[in-house]
Structure formats: C-alpha cells, structure tokens
C-alpha cells in the first residue's frame, strides 16, 4: 500500500464566497426586476474576485510548501478537465440554438416544410441569413453585418497566435528556461488583450454604424450571445494568465510542478478553439 492520503484543512473562503455570491445574485436580480440593488451587485462582483484571489492564494501557498502529493495533483487535473468539459457544453447550447434558428426556425417561418403554419403569422416574411429583416416590425434587424475578413480575421490571427506563443512559454517552463517562458507568456498577454481591444472596437462599430445590437432581431441576439460569452471567457482567461505571469516573475513553477500554469493554458486553448467555431459559424458562413 502506498502512504497515507492528504486531506486539505478546512477553510473559511468557500462560505465567504457563498456570501459574496449572495450579494451578487440578490443585487443582480433585484436591480433587473425592481430597479434597485445595482450597488449590491457590484459589491458582490468585487467580492467574488477578492474571494477567488484569497482562496487561490491559500492553495498556491499550500502547493508551494510541498503539502500536495501526486494524488492531489491528479484531482486538480481531473477537476479542471471536467470543468472545461462543462464549459464546452455551455457553448454547445448556444451553437445549437444558432443552428436551430438558421436551419429550422427561419425557413419554417418562411413557410417551408409540411407544417409551416407559422408562415401564416407574417406572410411577407422571407428567411435569410444574416437576418436583416425581422418577421415583425416590432424588431428591426441590422443594417449590415460585420465583415469577417477585417477585424474578425485579425482577431483569429491574434488568438491563434496567442495559443502558439503560450505553448512556447509552456515549453520554457517545462525545460526550466524561465526567461523564455516570461517573454513568450508576455507576448501571449499582449495578443490576448489586443484581441479584447479589437473585439471592443468591433462592438462599437456594430452599435454605431451597423445597427447590429442585442435588440436587432435574432441575428443580433445570437451574435452578441456567442461573441459576448466568448469575450467574457477571454477576459477571464487573460486575467488568469496575468496572474500566471506575475507568479512566473516571482519565481513560482518548476519543470515538474506547474499545474496552475498548465490549467490556465488548457483554458486558453479551449477559448481559442471556441473562437474558431465562432469565426466560421457566426462570421463567415
């Protein structure tokens, strides 16, 4: 039999995380439903980041003082891998919605198929994608859509490039070439934050010039749903990579023990793959 198990000590951060999540949830719901409580929401949001910081700080500290064994390491790996699986399913729901709207819902609204009674609602409606003219005048579709071969193409290059630079940085960590790791991780961060800036410019253009808004019918909805949640994930991933950069500067990570770095890079590659799906199915096709 191998040695004894390691069981982490109890911690006050999980329950405090629930408390700040309570602020966040009550604040969000109350401000959306009844128009007050936005401050509580912001307080909760800040609290969530603070709690993540202190909780992870403890874990990092325990890891660096050599408390964790190989089994604990495997638990972390499995935890992260299955968390990413659940994130994939989250995006799968949105991609599924996009395909359903494009392949089934709109043609049926146009009268296609044996049961096209929904075509009776708006007889003049004709299905198209991008949907520039919505069935009812209650919504107005976008004037134009984002040209995939300008900003989105640039963003594809930025994000794919950042996945490559991150892999080089990872190799640096593995081979204990710390300066190489720092340099390439720094490049990754520049590429990642550039992506976010370009995405921001694209959103401003969409709202000001193209009439492409959340309210612009189902095209606007799916566009911002998919790119918005992707952008939120990039933001989170970039923040985590920034933390990894700071840890690298402070001398953390060894060739054998750098799971924090590895988890962050798994997450970043996942975000990159989702973007490729977005580029093809939201922008190009």
């Amino acid at each position, binding site marked *: 039999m191998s040695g004894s198990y390691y069981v982490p000590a109890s911690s006050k951060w999980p329950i405090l995380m629930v408390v700040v999540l309570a602020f966040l949830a009550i604040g969000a719901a109350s401000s*959306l*439903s009844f128009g007050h409580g936005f401050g509580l929401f912001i307080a909760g949001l800040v609290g969530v980041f603070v709690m993540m910081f202190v909780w992870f700080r403890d874990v990092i500290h325990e890891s660096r003082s050599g408390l964790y064994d190989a089994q604990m390491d495997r638990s972390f790996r499995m*935890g992260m891998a299955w968390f990413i699986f659940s994130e994939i*399913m989250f995006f799968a729901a949105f991609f599924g919605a996009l395909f359903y709207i494009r392949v089934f819902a709109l043609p049926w609204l146009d009268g296609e198929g044996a049961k096209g009674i929904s075509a009776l609602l708006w007889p003049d409606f004709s299905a198209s994608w991008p949907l520039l003219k919505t069935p009812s005048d209650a919504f107005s579709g976008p004037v134009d859509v984002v040209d995939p071969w300008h900003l989105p193409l640039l963003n594809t290059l930025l994000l794919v490039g950042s996945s490559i630079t991150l892999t080089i940085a990872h190799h640096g960590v593995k081979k204990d070439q710390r300066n190489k790791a720092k340099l390439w991780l720094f490049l990754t961060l520049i590429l990642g934050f550039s992506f976010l800036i370009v995405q921001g410019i694209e959103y401003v253009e969409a709202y000001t010039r193209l009439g492409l808004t959340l309210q612009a*019918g189902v095209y606007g*909805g799916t566009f911002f749903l998919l790119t918005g949640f992707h952008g939120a994930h990039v933001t989170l991933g970039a923040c985590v990579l920034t933390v990894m950069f700071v840890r690298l500067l402070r001398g953390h990570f060894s060739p054998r023990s750098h799971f924090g770095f590895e988890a962050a890079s798994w997450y970043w590659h996942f975000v990159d793959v989702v973007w490729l799906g977005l580029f093809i199915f939201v922008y190009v096709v």
Partner: protein
Amino acid sequence: MTSNSYSSATEHAHEPQLRGLKRWLLTTNHKEIGTLYLIFSLTMFFIGGTMALVIRAELFQPGLQLVQPEFFNQMTTMHGLIMVFGAVMPAFVGLANWMVPLQIGAPDMALPRLNNFSFWLLPLAFSLLLSSLFMEGGGPNFGWTFYAPLSTTYAPPSTNFFILSIHLAGISSILGAINIIATILNMRTPAMKLMDMPLFVWTWLITAFLLLAVMPVLAGVVTMMLLDINFGTSFFNAAGGGDPVLFQHLFWFFGHPEVYIMILPAFGIASMIVPAFARKRLFGYRSMVYATASIAILSFVVWAHHMFTVGLPLAAQLFFMYATMLIAVPTGVKVFNWVATLFHGSISFEVPMLFTLAFIVQFTIGGLSGVMLAIVPADYQYHDTYFVVAHFHYVLVPGAVFAIIAGVYYWLPKWTGYYPDETLGRWHFWLSVIGVNLTFFPMHFSGLAGMPRRIPDYALQFADFNLLSSLGGFLFGLSQLLLVWVVVRCVRGGKPAPDNPWEGAEGLEWTVPSPAPLHTFSTPPEFIPERDSPSRA
C-alpha cells in the same frame, strides 16, 4: 467483497474539531457535508410537499375553494422546482458524499473545500427562489418547465430571482459532479478496479457525467431567458426571428437527462440492497454497468418526446419515438437482473428491502407508462393530462424517493451506530405504499379521460378520482413525519449496530465501525474483489 479490518491509524494529526455553527459552515468533511445535504433535502421535501398538499387540497373537489388560480400556478411551479432541484437531487448528492468515499476506501472527497462550497450554494439558491413568492407579482407561475413565452413575455417581475437561483443551483451541481468524478476516478483504494466498484459508485459516476453535460445547457437556456426579458433579444420570440420551440428543445436537452440524473443513483441503491437481503451476489454485474451507461448515452437523443405536439416534422417524431422506446431495453435489463438476483435467494424483508422491492415494482409501472407516452399518436391524447403527471410521479416518488428512503434505512446504522426502529419503519413503509398509490394511480384514469394538468378546477366527472388522489396525498405526506421520527430516534439511540448490521451486506463501508468515525481510511484499505471472494455464492 472485502477482507479488511479497519485500521485504527486514523487518530493522527487531524486539526482540532470546530464547534457549533462554525463547524457546519466551514466543514470539509464528507460525512458532515453529506449530513448537511440530507437535512437540506429533507427540509425541501417537506416544503415542496406542503405545496403539493395545497394543490391536492384545492383539487379535493371541483370548483375553486382555497386558493386563487394565480397562487395555484405558483404552487405547481414551485412544488416541481423544489422537489427536483431541492429535494431529490441533493438527497442523492448527500448519499454520495456519505457513501462513495466509504465504498471506495477513500479518506474524503477529492476536493473537500469545493465540496463545502457546493453545498452552501444550495441554501442560498433556494432562499432566493422561495423569497420570490413574497414579491410583487408573486413567484414563478409558469410550471417547473418554465416554457417561453410564459416565462419571458408573460412572466412575473420576480423571474430574475428564479433565473439567478437556477444558476446558483446549477453551479452547485456542476462543482459537486466534478468532485464526485475526481473522487471516484482518483481516490479508490488501489486494488479496486473500475469493474470492482459497487454499483452505487458506478451509477453515480455516470450520473455525474450527465450533470456535467446538461447543467451547463440549463444555464445557457436561463441566460437566454434573462436576455429576452431584460435586454430585448428575441431568442424565443418569433417576431424577431426566434422561436419559442427553441426554448423547449434546449430545456429538454437538459430535462431528459435530468430525469436519469434522478433515477440512476436510485438504480445503484437498489443494486446494493437487493443482493444484501437476498444474500446472493448481484446477478449480471457487468450488464448492470453497461445498461447504466447505455441509458445515459441514449438519454441525449430522446428529448423531443416531450414535444410531440408542438409541430415537429414526421421524421423527427419517428426518430424520437423509437429512440425513446429503445431505452426500455437497458432498463428492462436492470429490472430483470434485480429479479434474477432475488430468484432462489434467502430473502428477508427488513425495512430497506421493503422499500427497495416496492421501488422495483412501482418504478416499473412508471417505466411502462413511459413507453405508452413514447408512442406519438397515443401521446397526442395523453399530452398535458394527468396521465403524464401519474407517469413521472411514479418514477420519481415511489421510484426515486423510495430508493432514497431505502438507502437511508440501509445506511442509518452506519451513520448513527443504531438500528432504525423496525416496527416504526414498517408502519412508515406500508402507509407510504398505500398513500403513494392512492395518490398517483387514479391519476392514470383521470388523465386518460382527459383531465388537463396544472388547472385548479375540473369537470365533475373527475371528482371521484381526485378525491382519492387528495386523500392519498395527505396520507403519504403525513406518513413522512414518521420518517423524521424514525431518524431522530435512531440518532438518539436504539439497538446498537455492529460494524456490519445486515447479515448479507458486503462492501468496504461495512468494515469501518458503526457509527463511522469522522475520519476513515486515512490509509488505503485492503480490498478483495467480489469475484475472488469466497463469501458469496
């Protein structure tokens, strides 16, 4: 299954035990968290049950007596939400917390702090949900399936609270599932291979996978609702090019696997208890594992059987009909295996076994009405009637809930160190069986005769069936107070239980003392797979 003697090497170097409220708020111990889950689930069971009794009281006779239709809608909605997300799911997670580490020889869950976080999200989620009942415009009133546009365009203002509470409960489930998978895959005692695991562990492994696959989809669909309600998108609004039917596709892509999330661990419990009280090895262990996995995989391709009347293309109806009927095959394998295990067994009828046998029979009734509902032309008649209500209550109450209760009676000696009172347990069992069947069996008939569900009033012809259902409902509900009484008594004392309180029970959980000390298996225990063990024929 095992030849292990409990090692007393657990006493070393654990942090000092916290006291009072702090102990429960900060605990990372799988047994304490398991207890918290079970207490939470029982509380929700009574809150949701009270709502069911409001419904049954109103339906006792035709006409409107006690509540307004608006409030009735809130009761049907909240009853469903609370029982599904607050009672049944947390009960299984509680049992998993207690028993999975004990059954695989692990010292605790793989990620104990995450475990604490997962639990405490639940009281928050359900306080949020319940508080919406007292808000302007009332709580959720659109049915537990919250179909758009009832839940978007026509929803009460408090709907955002409902959405946030679903998000929180969903995060809890996802993190809990991650923890259970990591525990099962990573923390088993080295000699236990996957195909040696007790079936409760196997079914929970597969359930956790289902949770990770579909809870994010639920999060996605409520997020789209949130955007439709507050930010002017039109995902579920055909005026903007969306489709209310899209809501149903997304919801049931979550919703159908969700029913297996609530029944697979019940299969696991039955597969532990039947061999123990038949004093025989489980018939067809491997086929049980494969059947569970097949059910889980098939559960992803049957969701539209809930939507046969929304105007699906014929090809889709045929596909979903046959795929649904296919699930009867692995389910039949399971029932066959339980019966085959009983065959020529030396059966004794202690309370856990009584509940398990009732589970097998009554779950099968619910399964068979499910096959009826899978037939498209027949479903046109049954859809949205009390026949559907009868069907899913048979799989959930005399099905899943009975299995949970069986598990509680089976493992109580391990938790408390005392046997539950056998006489009171038998009373609880018989009153529950009579009550539950009196409640739900007549619903088959009122449903076939066309009584629509979720309506506070009904035509005179349904009066007799509803009277029976209401009497049965109150009988079943009140007899659950006996369960509380049995559990409280068992915690306080009773006939002391040895390490293995059941003559035929096998497994690592019976090698530790009763009651199980706070920390068990601080070193991996020895384990001999059942196939190599001489003790069971």
